């Protein structure tokens, strides 16, 4: 009954989305009864969230109980799996992850319908219409081609198990955070469509959209950071980013959301960049959908694999065409009616933001092209690969000017400014960058150009990102300003980690007997023992290593080579030792014919700064979001109080709106 209840809830939610769309269209058409229709729109959006969330809980329940009469559970779970992976296994498969996607979408729809009351009601109804229209497509996809609740004709005695690479705590956090980020952007998309439909593109629209963009962006940042760290320690080769299409699929919405969040800020506080912001609102969620299509359609393994079983892929492709095509058509038809907004001069904060928006968009274009190009050529029966040797230099072409402008921009004033005013402040970061570049060239001449530039720029940006706080009363500095400082500093920290990982890592691959000592960088590592161990659904060979950093105290490491039986697969569980200045990464491989063990050891200076930087960026976003939301609440409270006073003294003059 649980599965049937889950499915029924899903159908019910889909029906409510249909009602939401219908009522919204009737309300927008105007005429008789339109206000009654309008009254239905918000409630029907609000109930969908709980309905779908309940349906998702039903699926979780099935996974926890390992109900083997349900196809999805039988295909992806196993009764002997640890509890946490049964739980997280709910979204470790296609149908479950799509249900998670729809759950997040319905919950965002509920929330926006519940709390957003600042926009003109007509714009809000158009926004909710767009949200319902998008949701309907994904409900249909779930119900018609990815039903997670399908029963088996006869229950099976045991399930197939979960891919061992996914049996990691990373699975519990990575997909949900990423999906919240992906799908939160659907609200920004709906706001953009709603604003276009009702021609209400202005600061109010940007202020309503901004928390959604910020929230999605925070989750995307955390999701990407966590995914990168997960791949780093789980795959056992120490790589943290490979420009893999799946990674790119998560990076593209992030790039678009980063641009969108900056241009929405300009629109909210300066009423400029109207069309550009709308365009990015459409692009950001489009990138989420493209990413979902890439990952979920099976097209990545091979275009031909996609052609063999095209049902799901074609379905998502059709959704993509309708939504992206539709939104762009609407944009094309309405863009000319939206004025560009206020002007600004070449040297101003807006100009810096515009420049970096363009750079971010260019990087997005490169990543999109590089990801899709192999699929295009494969359609012409030639397979090519596009990887780091393409993405790194071409991306850097646009990223380097962007970082320079990022260091300068926040020091500039809105509207118009001069370089003379800020030149003095920029001397320090410029000198530091130059000194580091010169020092690195002299002391470590073997460094590649990109890591070298990365090191130099990260230092300059790191210092410059703190400068906006100079001369301010820190207690009175607004939270969003702190957010910007942390966000930019985080990028500098991450960049420093990336550059030093690529410039200074040392690798040691050796065959060692128990008792041998291996040197890698400043570490000496002794292989003290190798013993078999067993977990709940695996057996493993576990090495014990005693590692010393220079003459420091010994650290014990336990890398494992794990054998899973269900499904049969071997994984390397790496062991890490983290210091302030880097990470030691140890992996134990197979036993050679001579009885020696394959060891893989890396010393990666400052590599944890990559993920620390990612978390700092997300923290900056969280501060901004908090600042904005608190500001909104305070303004709402003031407005109510002013309205109350006005009621008490009806003849007093109008009180001006409190300033932003």
């Amino acid at each position, binding site marked *: 009954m649980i599965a049937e209840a889950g499915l029924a809830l899903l159908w019910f939610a889909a029906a409510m989305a249909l009602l939401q769309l219908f009522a919204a269209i009737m309300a927008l058409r105007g005429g008789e009864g339109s206000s009654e229709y309008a009254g239905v729109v918000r409630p029907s959006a609000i109930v969908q969230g709980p309905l779908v969330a309940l349906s998702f809980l039903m699926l979780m329940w099935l996974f926890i109980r390992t109900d083997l009469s349900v196809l999805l559970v039988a295909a992806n779970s196993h009764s002997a799996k640890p509890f946490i992976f049964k739980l997280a296994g709910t979204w470790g498969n296609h149908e479950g992850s799509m249900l998670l996607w729809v759950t997040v979408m319905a919950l965002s729809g509920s929330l926006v319908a519940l709390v957003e009351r600042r926009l003109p009601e007509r714009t809000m109804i158009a926004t909710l219409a767009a949200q319902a229209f998008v949701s309907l497509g994904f409900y249909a996809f779930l119900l018609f081609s990815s039903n997670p609740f399908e029963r088996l004709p006869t229950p099976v005695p045991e399930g197939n198990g979960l891919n061992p690479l996914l049996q990691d705590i990373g699975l519990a956090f990575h997909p949900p955070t990423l999906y919240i980020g992906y799908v939160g952007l659907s609200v920004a998309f709906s706001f953009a469509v709603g604003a276009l439909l009702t021609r209400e593109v202005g600061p109010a629209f940007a202020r309503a959209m901004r928390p959604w963009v910020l929230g999605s962006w925070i989750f995307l940042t955390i999701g990407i950071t966590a995914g990168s760290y997960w791949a780093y320690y789980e795959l056992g080769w120490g790589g943290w980013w490979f420009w893999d299409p799946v990674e790119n699929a998560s990076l593209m919405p992030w790039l678009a959301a980063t641009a969108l969040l900056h241009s929405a800020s300009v629109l909210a506080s300066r009423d400029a960049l109207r069309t550009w912001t709308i365009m990015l609102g459409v692009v950001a969620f489009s990138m989420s959908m493209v990413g979902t299509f890439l990952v979920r359609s099976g097209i990545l393994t091979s275009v031909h694999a996609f052609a063999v079983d095209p049902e799901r892929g074609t379905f998502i492709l059709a959704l993509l065409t309708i939504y992206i095509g539709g939104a762009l058509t609407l944009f094309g038809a309405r863009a000319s009616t939206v004025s560009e907004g206020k002007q600004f001069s070449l040297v101003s904060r807006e100009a810096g933001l515009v420049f970096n928006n363009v750079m971010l968009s260019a990087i997005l274009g490169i990543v999109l092209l590089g990801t899709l190009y192999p699929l295009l050529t494969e359609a012409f029966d030639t397979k090519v690969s596009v990887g780091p040797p393409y993405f790194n230099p071409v991306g850097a072409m646009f990223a380097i000017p962007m970082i320079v402008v990022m260091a300068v921009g926040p020091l500039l004033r809105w509207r118009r400014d001069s370089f003379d005013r800020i030149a003095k402040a920029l001397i320090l970061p410029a000198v530091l960058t130059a000194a580091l570049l010169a020092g690195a060239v002299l002391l470590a001449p073997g460094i590649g150009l990109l890591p070298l530039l990365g090191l130099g720029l990260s230092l300059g940006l790191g210092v410059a990102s703190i400068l906006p706080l100079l001369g301010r009363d820190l207690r009175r500095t607004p939270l969003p300003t702190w957010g910007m400082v942390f966000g930019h500093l985080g990028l500098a920290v991450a960049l420093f980690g990336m550059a030093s990982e690529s410039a200074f890592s040392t690798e040691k691959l050796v065959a060692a007997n128990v008792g041998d000592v291996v040197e890698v960088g400043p570490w000496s590592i002794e292989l003290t023992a190798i*013993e078999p161990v067993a977990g709940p659904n695996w057996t493993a060979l576990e090495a014990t290593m005693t590692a010393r950093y220079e003459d420091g105290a010994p650290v014990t490491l336990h890398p494992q080579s794990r054998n899973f039986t269900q499904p049969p697969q071997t994984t390397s569980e790496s062991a890490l030792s983290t210091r302030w200045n880097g990470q030691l990464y140890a992996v134990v491989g197979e036993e050679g014919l001579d009885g020696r063990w394959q060891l893989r050891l890396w010393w990666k200076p400052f590599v944890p700064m990559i993920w620390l930087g990612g978390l700092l960026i997300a923290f900056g976003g969280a501060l901004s979001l908090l600042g904005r939301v608190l500001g909104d609440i305070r303004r709402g409270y003031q407005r109510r109080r002013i309205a109350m006073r006005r009621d008490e003294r009806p003849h007093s003059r109008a009180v001006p709106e409190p300033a932003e």
Partner: protein
Amino acid sequence: MTRLIAFLALLLAAPVMAQDQLPPAPYAYRQLEDPAQEEKAQALMETLRCLKCQSQSIADSDASMAGDMRNQVRQRIKAGEEPEAIRAWLVERYGDYVSYKPELTTLTWPLFAAPLVLLLLALLLLRKRFVRRPDAPAGEQA
């Protein structure tokens, strides 16, 4: 008890594992003695695709084919071949797919044209934004 079971399981599994072990490729899991050569080999391996895996370079895959290819690359580097010559040899053998570094051909030129087009577009966009009215007072409605 669990340790004992694990050990027994491993004993049982051992002959099965031995059977599918290929003749060892000496440089699959061993570095070259000369660090400069190893660095060259490593840089090359990171840009070659493991054909049996999904989106992994041969430098970070446990697949036996990746091991064989690592061995090939290291032995050729050791013999003094240039990395790009080895890449060309591998491309000839396995097709363009094996190299993550796309070459400029009639099929891939858009990849190389794109950054230039984007750069031009970016310049145009920025130019349109700023150069139109260099002396116009800021803050006016368009």
